[in-house]
């Protein structure tokens, strides 16, 4: 467990999001409700011209509901629609204007360089060409995470069930120690061919971890 971690806590507001689960070629594409580190890093890299800014995000419960969007992509060759596809998307809860969330960036020179530009607009997730994924980021606070249970504004480390998705090599930087993993895979750029992706083992929701409290959905009660 590292001595201390500095995080940049951003507020996220989005009108609609398509955070597709990685199921392709299907006529239905479900939507997840967390912001994986790959999605956050990809969106910020796009905004900042390829800089590597590590981040992970979570949507605030109750700020969104699910809806279905049906569209029919056309074949680039023939211009003919093949199959209507149903995509699940997130929209603001009834009566609300935005989906709300929190993004935690690992403090670095690149992340610090981003702060003066706040509030800023990035695009995240899928179907951006249909208008989905436009997000506004504002600064919430610069915060520190430290072991034990110190007083505010420092975030304590706790043992509990992880509520996000993060690639394994990024765990240490965020001070996350895995006790018992629930594995999955997230995409990352292939260093040998930036036009391609490869899949990196990741820690998914429900993994038992020791981590800053904000990354945990439910604290572990047992031994």
């Amino acid at each position, binding site marked *: 467990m590292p001595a201390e971690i500095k995080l940049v806590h951003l507020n996220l507001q989005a009108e609609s999001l398509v955070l597709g689960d990685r199921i392709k070629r299907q006529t*239905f594409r479900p939507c997840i409700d967390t912001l994986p580190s790959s999605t956050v890093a990809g969106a910020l890299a796009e905004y900042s011209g390829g800089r590597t800014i590590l981040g992970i995000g979570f949507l605030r419960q109750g700020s969104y509901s699910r809806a279905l969007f049906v569209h029919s992509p056309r074949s680039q060759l023939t211009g003919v629609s093949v199959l209507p596809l149903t995509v699940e998307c997130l929209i603001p809860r009834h009566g609300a204007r935005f989906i709300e969330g929190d993004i935690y960036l690992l403090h670095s020179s690149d992340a610090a360089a981003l702060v003066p530009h706040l509030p800023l607009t990035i695009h995240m997730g899928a179907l951006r060409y249909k208008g989905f994924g436009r997000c506004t980021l504002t600064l919430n606070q610069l915060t520190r995470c430290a072991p034990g249970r110190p007083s505010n504004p420092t975030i304590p480390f706790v043992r509990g069930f992880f509520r996000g998705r993060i690639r394994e090599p990024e765990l240490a930087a965020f001070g996350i120690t895995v006790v018992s993993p*629930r594995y999955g895979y997230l995409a990352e750029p292939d260093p040998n061919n930036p036009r391609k992706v490869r899949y990196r083992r990741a820690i998914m929701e429900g993994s038992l971890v020791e981590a800053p409290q904000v990354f945990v959905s439910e604290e572990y009660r047992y031994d």
Partner: protein
Amino acid sequence: MSDKPYIAEFHDLAKLLDKDALGTLGIKVRGQRFDEIDYGALSLSKPSCPSWYAPYCEDLKSLDSKVARDCGKWAADVFLTRIADRLAASFRLAEFEEPLDKRTRTIAGWRKIWKDQVESPEWQVRLISSKEAFSSLLGFWDRCANPDDVSDYLKRPLSAIPEDKAPPYNITSLYSHLRLVGMIYRVLRSAVKTLPAGLSLGGEDVSQATQAMGGRVDESVRGNWIGTLTLVDVGIRQHLSRLRDLNVFVKREHVMRQIEATFPDHVLYRTPESLLLFTVLGGGVEPSNLTAPLLQEGFPLDVQHLEAELGLLVSDFERQWLKFRASKGVASRHLFLRQRPLNEAAQDVFHGKICEVCQMAPSLPQPWLKDQIEEWLCEGCTGIRQLHEPAIDISDWQGATLWVKVSLDRRHLTLQLPSLFEYYVKESLPGVNPDEAHRFVEAFRPLAAETDFIRDYQAFVQEFQSQLCAQLKGLPTETAIPWSYVLRGYPELTVLPIVSNREFLIACETFIRNLHTFFPRCCGDSPITLALSLSPGKYPYQEHWRFLTRKPDPKRPISIQRAFDFDIALSSPQFRALRDFLDNASPPTSASLHHLAALEGDLDSPTAILFEAFKNQRMRPALRPLLFQHGVSIETILGFYKLTVWQEVSRAG
């Protein structure tokens, strides 16, 4: 004698006897032992098998004792039977000073605490009361060579007679008790080493039962032998994108059955979605040995694991853990509760495509091709799709379908069993004061009752599925369903075609009727739930699954979803009230309900909705009980109403 096996199940054989009736015939049985009978004078043949000593377990507390010497080379087996008997017992009486003298109370047959009456009113007829029957029992005892034969040969009496006949202790069948004792004994027997002066497990030598098991939860006497109970919830990683992916349930059942066949005594029970495992520390078999085949096949597990001195090992983990943490002297004792998600992912990184179904492995070089759609699947998911073609009926059906799933929330069950028992204590001992009732509950160990409940649940699920399918197929021709889809080994899931829109009503009614039959005392707060998902035939299967496996509210055990529209949750009384409401000769019109539901969404104020609803004179009398007595929301009424639109059509006709 030595060529026959020792069978621990015989330790409680005397509980099958009508001792008073046999006593009048000169057959005297003291406690559980049969050694005071004058076999020669009665022309009975005394069994000469090793199991003859099993009833001595009641008296064998130490391997140094005279009783142990009487048992000779079988003393270790009898000693382990004693420990197994304590572990499987529904009460730890040593922890508990009985408030009333048990001997002065009446006796009764086996009473399930989730039911309203004893299981078999003529249970006393099953007791052995004649010399011929007694002689036959001795003969069986002598020649029995297989533990399974005990439960087969004596199944009827064992299923009617309780482990303890004095209410409120009569809540476990002798069948379940003997079975559990046999399994636990065999796990211990295979794990311990026999020493000249005792037994050893995991390097801990003991010669006294208390040395092995330890004292009460609030005492400092430590038990040297450590056991584990592990509850394994077996999930699936696959997204059900095609009907062939349903084969994953067949595969899961197959793997779980294999585990049970390989470790028949370690698997205390199995439901279609979970396993309860018993192992001992240092015994050579770890819980990970049992879960390994599931992980290798890619099933994600949620494991709760209680590791404790044998005397502290109970199946309601959480309650015991809290009690242990609250007690003094914790530092010297051994009890740990752990909860872990488990799954496997072999590779750190890979290139190319990821399997689109499980998303846990690289796909094969060739895609799975169907209907001109390419899917990139890993080897495991391809294998699952190739198991067999499971669902032609569903895929050929052009109309709507109803997906039906029954679930058991085992964690809720372990919380509920003590409450059900407390209710029964108060019922069977009307004069008992709350403190005494609480002490009964504190001494309650739910493992045996839980295994009885699980057996009832398995029967319930089978009965529900067969009744539902038979009823819908037996309707008049125009409303009868042409097919039903069930998976072998997984009766919790059924898929039906929607022909008349009445299928959901019949499913709910069948569920409620069976719940009342099997678990009448769980109707208000049910660990068993029903989820129904109605949709067009091509609705994504994964979305059905997501709804069907959503954590339900035990107070409202019926959940109904109509795809792209609404989902509602109902209790049994709410369902009945809604059905009666819409059976009414002058039900509300669809328009007025839609109007109210829209207002409910906009205003978010129950009071405003009530005023609006009560403006409508026709709806007022019908809505009042639904809203006030049963607490049903307008949106739920509208959802239910939409599902019964056929009634409106038939009324109009």
